[in-house]
């Protein structure tokens, strides 16, 4: 039997016309993006820089910078099983997480490999929001197997978000009338009436400095941007793009997915994904929990001590060690790892990097083979690397409550 086909006109179909979409702030951010430099993040246009990446970077360390984080993926977990389900999925103790707080987490496969990392917001006894860089709905559904009373919703497009980061960020929020914001502790959440609804503020960020993330409904996005930039002038506000954020996050000691680690679900080659221990995330593995995905594998790995280490490195000289291979000796005879992120840190005045080093070698000498250009001509140098255990940049103000005004 020939099939019954009902033809539809093209105009009645929701065609995908392009791969790159505007965020709710685009009408504003595109005006400030002088050279229209955009990258693509989860299908949204994200500014590479607005006018001057160097200046934008210094705003997070000197005044305040605004980064549009709307392309982040956001998921709502609600229901009486939500806490228990998440507790099984992520590595930290969700049951004990107080309402109105945020916890940085990772979630792993049963073999202890990182699927993704993100921040888990507990917004009520039975309500959570999980923010991460990559789409994860399929994995969350898989992770919820056996839990019936949890509804998982992708709310990525229902919330617009800005990160406001830097020493004057609290002062600016106070000036905007968000009373009590100075009492907001790190990783705490507060709510304020705003526009047609409310503004959710969390004292979180990706720069390691004093800072907040502001979450609004998309219809109030432009209002939020306008208020920040109208009032923010005197507080030195700057929009910031990917380039400056990238510098700030490495200084702060944060990881970037698909830069410092390769998510397990899209890893084809064995060993190209990572355990949280390898990434230096042992501090968020709560082995007191009876179970979480990957627990057994991670305990075994921890006991063996036999795993690679993502190290923070301070490298001699001033040539960033981008794409470098690491060796155990100056002659570059024994290859022991590679650099994942590298830059010259303008505030610390150091040549900093992360390097993933084989288990056998992380305690010994580390040398980076660096290639750099002088007027097109390529130069090679081998530079000694020193391990650093603390973040490169961690100002006191980031932890103080109330924080200073600048």
């Amino acid at each position: 039997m020939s099939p019954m086909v009902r033809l539809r006109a093209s105009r009645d179909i929701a065609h995908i016309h392009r791969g790159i979409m505007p965020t709710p702030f685009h009408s504003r951010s595109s005006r400030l993006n002088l050279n229209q430099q955009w990258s693509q993040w989860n299908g949204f246009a994200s500014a590479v820089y607005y006018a001057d990446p160097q200046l934008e970077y210094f705003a997070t360390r000197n005044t305040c910078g605004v980064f549009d984080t709307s392309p982040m993926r956001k998921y709502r977990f609600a229901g009486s099983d939500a806490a228990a389900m998440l507790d099984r999925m992520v590595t930290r103790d969700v049951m004990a997480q107080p309402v109105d707080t945020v916890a940085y987490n990772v979630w792993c496969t049963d073999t202890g490999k990182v699927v993704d990392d993100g921040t888990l917001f507990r917004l009520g006894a039975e309500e959570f929001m999980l923010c991460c860089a990559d789409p994860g709905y399929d994995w969350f559904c898989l992770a919820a197997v056996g839990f019936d009373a949890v509804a998982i919703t992708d709310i990525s497009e229902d919330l617009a978000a800005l990160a406001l980061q830097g020493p004057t960020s609290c002062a600016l929020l106070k000036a905007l009338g968000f009373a009590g914001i100075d009492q907001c502790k790190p990783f705490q959440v507060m709510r304020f009436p705003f526009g047609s609804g409310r503004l959710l503020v969390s004292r979180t960020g990706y720069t390691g400095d004093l800072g907040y993330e502001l979450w609004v409904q998309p219809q109030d996005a432009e209002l939020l941007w306008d208020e920040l930039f109208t009032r923010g002038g005197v507080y030195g506000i700057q929009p910031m793009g990917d380039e400056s954020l990238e510098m700030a996050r490495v200084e702060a000691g944060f990881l970037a997915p698909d830069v410092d680690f390769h998510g397990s679900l899209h890893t084809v080659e064995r060993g190209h994904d990572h355990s949280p221990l390898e990434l230096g995330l042992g501090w968020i593995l709560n082995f007191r929990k009876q179970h979480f995905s990957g627990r057994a594998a991670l305990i075994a790995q921890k006991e063996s001590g036999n795993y690679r280490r993502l190290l923070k490195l301070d490298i001699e000289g001033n040539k960033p060690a981008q794409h470098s291979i690491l060796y155990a000796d100056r002659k570059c005879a024994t290859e022991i790892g590679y650099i994942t992120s590298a830059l010259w840190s303008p505030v610390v005045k150091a040549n900093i990097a992360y390097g993933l080093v084989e288990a056998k070698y992380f305690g010994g000498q580390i040398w980076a083979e660096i290639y750099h250009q002088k007027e097109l001509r390529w130069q090679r140098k081998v530079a000694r690397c020193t391990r650093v255990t603390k973040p490169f940049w961690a100002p006191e103000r980031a932890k103080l409550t109330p924080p200073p005004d600048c």
Partner: protein
Amino acid sequence: MTTRYDAIVIGAGHNGLTNAAYLAKGGLDVLVVEKNDYIGGAAVSRELHEGWIYSNCSYVCSLLRQSIHRDLDLTRHGLMIVPYAGTTNFSRNGDYIAEYTDQAMRYREVRRHSLRDADAMVRYETDLMRYAKLIRHFLLRTPADPTSFKPRDLAELVFMGKKFAGMGAEQVYEFIRFMTMSAGDFLDEYFENELVKALFSTSSIIGTALGVYSPGTAYVLLHHVMGDVDGAVGAWGLARGGMGAISNAIAGALREHGGEIRTGAPVQQIIVRNGRAVGVALDNGEEIRADIVVSNLDPKRTFTVIMDRNDIPADLRKKAEHFKIRGSSGKVNIALTGAPDFPSLPAGHPLRHGSFQFLDTMERMERAYDDWKHGRWSEDPFIEMTQSSMWDPTLAAPGHYFVSCFIQYCPAAVQGGWTPAKRDAFGKTVIDQICNYSPNFRDLIAHMEVRTPYEIEHEIGLTEGNIFQGELTIDQLMFNRPFPGYSQYRGPVKGMYLCGSGTHPGGGVSSACGANSAREILRDLRRPNVVPEDDVDE
């Protein structure tokens, strides 16, 4: 009168030509004898209607080994492979689902139909890619004989074992499951949306006399993503000038190395004396002598038609008779005088250049297969319609189009046998299906060539019209292809070899079978190897 060569290759399919080119490059005096008046076998371009060039059989290219392309200098011999992309799958409700090449668009298009499936695509593609990367290591290698204790077989088994174990224990289990699974069950493990599953399922039954829910079809799916275009694994391309450009370029390389091709020269029999192949006898009675005789024909035809039953072991004859080589595909090549309307896709939409399919549920595919089981062509057939000329200006004049339609399912035999009238009725079923989605399609047809398995068999000699020279089921793959004990390209008598798609790594325009076979022949002759290793995933 008899003439003499070092080697005779029977059949100028692309594998026969590849084999001959490497034998010639290895220093042998080689003759290719082809029954048709043109070369290429199932990789051929022909002008059946003035002004339109058809890729009569195969129509897209991904499996062709890049190292052979480079080694035989096929670009200089006129070959260019252009990446081709963008499959649109129309559904009966007037909508469609499309595979955009742009990552973000691809994601959003699937998300339009299912959020969960859009996110699950990463898992699916990663797992499939893992298997593809594994299999790719073995394409340009002779399968090990697992029962042999020869150092070479043992070394090959170790190589295989290493690649296999390199995936890690849990992936080894998954891979073994995968190899025996149906594509339907495999896709059900990742996706929830029928349209999404239908889109991904179609390559699992191409050329295969199985349904999407038949065990073994997951592998066929993999067979269609293990190729690449310039290292983009899973990508497909078009040969500029049609698929015949591939055969013609290989023939150019062959001639350059001193080889000869005789067309219009059907072989009646391989001549065997004292357990040795000594040459071939043509239909016209002419005999040509050579110490090496290579058959590009499928194994069944080779051992049941052009070899005398007294020249081969009875057991081999039995295996050949039972070789699974069921035909299930048809082909309709169409010359259009204008671009057809597809109301759901506006003119100028980038997807208008890609290929079209008309399948919204796997169940419809399964039903289409049911018809085949009953010896009928599918009433609601699956069609892959490739609009090659939108990418290739050499196939038709500007504003004219060559459209290639590949169809599942069409049986090798229908009740009462195939007749021209039944063939045309099959053609009409196909055009009717397209017209369901493109009302003006029929009005634009200037000419069409309808090919059932009957035409495919009678023209190219593919037994039952099976496009792969034998089905790609696990019992007929790797060291079991075509039969246990015969996977290393050597025939039952000295000096006789196989080089067609019926051997490892199987069907498709890959040149791998012909190249692997040439490597074995040169080895037996103790000549230096001139066949390249694969350069996959270095």
